[in-house]
């Protein structure tokens, strides 16, 4: 092809670009640009109509200026005019400008859409492609609304040119990604799937991207693509390198298409049809075999293309996780790459092996490469590769090699890049705890960790070592000895002083027999560090000192002297001063017995927290907001997430007082008891005043539910749950308190609190009538498999509920493992002789067992990445059914029980949350991302957790909340 004539006749543009390039300074450039902008503005505003060429030239200049990074606030209209030019070159520039610079100016969008519509119907393939490119580049909702119906038609029409089909497929993909609700494939599904059979390889290449995206969202509708994809793949894999002509890339037949086919298959489980599966396994074997053949070219493009297919095939093998033979072959192949001279291949092999390590079939095979990986950690020159090696070591670690891996990681830590130290520290701490057989090794490891990388040891890590030492008496003496030795170092990290202070304060007596570590020696050692430490550490040391006074009366005089010194007792820091004063006083007036009681050894910590999520901070408290009756259904949703302060505990303990008149609904608490006038404003009282006497006759008969249950026919079996019970359940996903149910007779209020995997729920049954309920009986049942997932215990209630009175029932819930269904609450009672039988779903949902987890952005993304297997993710895209107010959203997300993480998502509009679901069987870490699109009034919700059922359930629950 001849060299292009520069600028295509737009000489003015070339001159302008040269001018800019010749500018010596930023100021000169800005000056030149302002001059040009003024010139263009005057041309556009001038009386003389501009010809198409000039318009094109100026629009192109504006585009150039914009791409330099300057703002452009005019010229859009001229660009739109260019769209309807019949000169291709002008149209093309117009479209380019629009693609790069479109903003959602509604007036313009209408004009642009008009121009696009004309070009789409022009039957000129070049124009059609331009228009499709523009839609794909902009991808806005307005465009989806205008064209999502038309493009599938173009895509499958028999007379559409191949090039247009290709553009149409990808255009549709972009629209689907932006506005999935507007792209309805329905009737086109099967014809789109059959594009996989198209003769034109380009059409298949474009269409498969669309099909993969649609399949991943609607696997069932598109499942016929599996066999088509397998046969297409098989044809490519078995073809000679020259068969596919221009689709052969450096002797590799159709590498892009092959990768995409393998990727598409990863949306599905292994094919059920034996023949299809056999063919696929054959393909995968061929791909693995080809990796062993000598290369057909020395060019890196050849090996990249070939290996791209190989890695994608290995991903598929790992995804299936069912063919031990293939998994082990994949592992061996990756093992070869670990020592390849190409850095890229080493990187990818380490990354890919990380996922292989978690498969039971290949875990052992991965472990055989430990020496190579350790070597990589030591010798790789690129930090990103070393990072992969560290990840892989972490993934392949088990009881058999933990000591070796932890030792290697520790020694690497001494020279590790600052960017990955904190992560390495966490990993070492987690592995050391997880695989500790003897706890002295664990203590050594953590103390080493502090010694080597003290700055990167977060509080959680040193808290954890203290918890473990306190809970395990077999290691206490060893810990005291080791930490004492570590403190001997002339310079030791402050974290070491903290651990030392705490442990010696508790267990210093265990080593006090040795004269080298006599009480006074211990104290002097600790106190020699005191002046170098920050205030919180000094405070901790002061507490250690008073503990010493209790442990070793012989140190009392020395320590009292220290406490009495001006630098302590008159310290400018209030906390330190107060401790010094109080401890001094305590030591001088309290008797030995009192002192021994006050300063008793710390009790064991209640329960092991997950070490992986050692960053757990806040305990989840129950919502503690009074429920307003009137708003229970609307605004009340916010209450659960509102205040989680300390008052919560008080409110909860008040409510748990087993008094029959206890009323969580503060508004009417006094009404029935103290006989406030009926106009007091509470709903319950209003019901009395309005429908009081007639409630028994006319008023109640209006209630369909009553008339449908006449006494004689009434069944004693629990009624099926009310149709609205799911809706009622959804109202309580993000809140713990409120009115669960209300009809003309009965109101049921709920107050609940959850800690770890336990929950307690108070149900308040209020009789709204003036007549007593007799044979009042409630039962809670767990249908089906829920029985093995939840342990629910109830206390029976009094069988008589007086008119206007309220009874309370306490339900204890233990979550054994994750669950989907809700327990059923059945209430039966007789009212005026008629049996009432109501079943509701009890609002116990899996998210109630969330504990919020705070984490920094880096941790979040790392964990997010670790949970990247398709089944670990659940995603929903849905329309907003309430307003999209930020505060409301935040309150709901908090109400869900997760921690709302600030400054994590790069897009401030989005929300990310993290939490751990506590069940008896396991703890499930869960990450969440909610992306609101205010313009489209849509949300995208993504859940990732280590358990597929949890991701799905939380996603389902939460999707109903917005």
């Amino acid at each position, binding site marked *: 092809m001849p060299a292009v004539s520069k600028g*295509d006749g737009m000489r003015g543009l070339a001159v302008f670009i040269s001018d800019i390039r010749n500018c010596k300074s930023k100021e000169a450039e800005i000056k030149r640009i302002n001059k040009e902008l003024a010139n263009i503005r005057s041309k556009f505003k001038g009386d003389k109509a501009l010809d198409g060429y000039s318009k094109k030239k100026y629009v192109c200049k504006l585009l150039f200026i914009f791409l330099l990074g300057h703002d452009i606030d005019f010229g859009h209209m001229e660009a739109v005019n260019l769209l309807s030019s019949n000169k291709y070159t002008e149209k093309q520039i117009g479209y380019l400008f629009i693609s790069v610079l479109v903003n959602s100016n509604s007036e313009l969008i209408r004009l642009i859409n008009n121009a696009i519509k004309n070009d789409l119907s022009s039957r000129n393939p070049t124009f059609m492609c331009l228009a499709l490119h523009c839609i794909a580049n902009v991808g806005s909702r307005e465009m989806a609304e205008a064209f999502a119906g038309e493009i599938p038609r173009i895509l499958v029409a028999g007379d559409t040119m191949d090039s247009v089909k290709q553009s149409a497929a*990808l255009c549709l993909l972009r629209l689907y990604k932006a506005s999935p609700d507007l792209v309805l494939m329905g009737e086109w599904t099967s014809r789109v799937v059959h594009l996989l059979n198209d003769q034109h390889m380009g059409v298949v290449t474009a269409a498969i991207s669309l099909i993969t995206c649609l399949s991943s969202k609607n696997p069932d509708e598109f499942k016929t693509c599996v066999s088509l994809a397998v046969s297409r793949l098989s044809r490519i894999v078995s073809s000679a390198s020259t068969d596919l002509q221009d689709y052969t*890339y450096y002797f590799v037949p159709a590498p892009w298409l092959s990768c995409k086919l393998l990727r598409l298959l990863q949306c599905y489980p292994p094919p059920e049809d034996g023949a299809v599966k056999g063919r696929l396994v054959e393909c995968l074997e061929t791909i693995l075999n080809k990796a062993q053949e000598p290369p057909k070219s020395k060019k890196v493009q050849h090996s990249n293309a070939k290996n791209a297919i190989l890695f994608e095939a290995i991903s598929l093998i790992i995804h299936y996780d069912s063919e031990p033979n293939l998994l082990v072959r994949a592992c061996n192949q990756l093992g070869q790459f670990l020592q390849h001279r190409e850095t890229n291949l080493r990187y990818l092999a380490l990354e890919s092996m990380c996922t292989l390590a978690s498969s039971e079939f290949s875990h052992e095979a991965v472990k055989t490469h430990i020496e190579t990986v350790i070597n990589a950690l030591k010798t790789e020159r690129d930090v990103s590769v070393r990072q992969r090696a560290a990840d892989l070591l972490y993934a392949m670690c088990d009881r058999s090699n933990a000591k070796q891996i932890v030792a290697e990681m520790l020694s690497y830590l001494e020279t590790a890049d600052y960017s990955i130290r904190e992560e390495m520290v966490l990993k070492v701490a987690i592995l050391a705890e997880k695989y500790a057989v003897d706890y002295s090794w664990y203590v050594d490891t953590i103390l080493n960790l502090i010694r080597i990388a003290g700055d990167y040891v977060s509080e959680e890590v040193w808290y954890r070592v203290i918890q473990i030492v306190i809970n395990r008496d077999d290691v206490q003496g060893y810990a005291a000895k080791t930490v004492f030795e570590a403190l001997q170092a002339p310079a030791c990290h402050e974290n070491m002083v903290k651990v030392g202070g705490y442990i010696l304060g508790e267990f210093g007596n265990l080593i006090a027999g040795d004269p080298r570590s006599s009480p006074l020696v211990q104290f002097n050692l600790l106190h020699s560090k005191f002046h170098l430490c920050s205030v919180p550490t000094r405070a901790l040391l002061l507490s250690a000192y008073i503990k010493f006074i209790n442990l070793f009366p012989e140190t009392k005089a020395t320590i009292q002297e220290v406490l009495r010194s001006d630098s302590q007792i008159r310290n400018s820091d209030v906390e330190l001063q107060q401790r010094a004063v109080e401890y001094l006083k305590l030591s001088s007036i309290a008797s030995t017995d009192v002192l021994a009681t006050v300063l008793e050894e710390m009790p064991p910590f209640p329960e092991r927290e997950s070490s992986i999520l050692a960053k757990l901070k806040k305990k989840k408290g129950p919502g503690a907001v009074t429920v307003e009756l009137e708003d229970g259904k609307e605004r009340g949703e916010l209450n659960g997430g509102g205040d989680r302060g300390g008052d919560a505990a008080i409110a909860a303990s008040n409510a748990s007082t087993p008094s029959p008149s206890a009323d969580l609904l503060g508004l009417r608490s006094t009404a029935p008891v103290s006989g406030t006038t009926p106009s007091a404003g509470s709903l319950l009282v209003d019901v009395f005043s309005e429908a009081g006497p007639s409630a028994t006759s006319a008023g109640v008969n209006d209630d369909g539910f009553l008339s449908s249950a006449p006494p004689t026919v009434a069944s004693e079996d629990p009624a099926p749950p009310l149709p609205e019970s799911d809706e009622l359940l959804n109202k309580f996903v993000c809140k713990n308190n409120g009115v669960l149910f209300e009809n003309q007779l009965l109101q049921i209020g709920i107050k609940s609190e959850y800690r770890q995997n336990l929950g307690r729920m108070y149900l308040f049954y209020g009789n709204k009538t003036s007549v007593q309920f007799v044979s009042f009986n409630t039962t809670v049942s767990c249908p089906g498999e829920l029985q093995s997932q939840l342990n629910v215990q109830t206390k029976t209630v009094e069988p008589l509920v007086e008119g206007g009175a309220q009874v309370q029932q306490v339900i204890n819930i233990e979550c054994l493992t994750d669950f989907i269904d809700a327990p059923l609450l059945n209430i039966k009672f007789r009212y005026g002789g008629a049996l009432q039988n109501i079943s509701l779903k009890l609002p116990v949902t899996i998210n109630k067992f969330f504990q919020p987890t705070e984490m920094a952005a880096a941790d979040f993304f790392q964990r997010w990445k670790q949970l990247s297997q398709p089944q670990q993710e659940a995603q929903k895209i849905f329309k907003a059914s309430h307003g999209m107010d930020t505060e409301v959203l935040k309150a709901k997300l908090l109400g869900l029980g997760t921690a709302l993480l600030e400054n994590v998502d790069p897009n401030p509009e989005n929300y990310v949350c993290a939490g751990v679901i506590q069940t008896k069987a396991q703890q499930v870490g869960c990450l969440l991302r909610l992306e609101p699109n205010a313009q489209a009034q849509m949300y995208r919700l993504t859940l990732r957790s280590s358990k597929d059922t949890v991701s799905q359930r939380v996603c389902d629950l939460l999707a109903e909340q917005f």
Partner: protein
Amino acid sequence: MQFMLLFSRQGKLRLQKWYVPLSDKEKKKITRELVQTVLARKPKMCSFLEWRDLKVVYKRYASLYFCCAIENQDNELITLEIIHRYVELLDKYFGSVCELDIIFNFEKAYFILDEFLLGGEAQDTSKKNVLKAIEQADLLQECCMTDTVSQSFSMV
């Protein structure tokens, strides 16, 4: 693919193509960060890096860096070859392409990219087919050009 950036060794942005909706401010921030990160890397380092929750694949050709951000499940090696194929297309079109060609004919660089990648996915991987599409457009362009020329003659 989420976006593609071309920038020079001096950090000057030469081409930017975004396949996800982002505000101008975000685009500038991302560009700044990424250009810095990539330029700081040494020649023999690997071509992939983790960046935010994306993977970045980059390669240097003479004075220009080609840099793509892809999603987690995307294939790094094939993305490297996407870059290479684009370079080949530019090279064939401009006749041993250099940075200046892309500066002065930036619109052409965008047109070629649109023919090759659309919405972040390969539209056609055949070099012939992509170039054919561009050639056809150029033919249309040239006949228009002669139109303008003849018009200006008639005005004289």
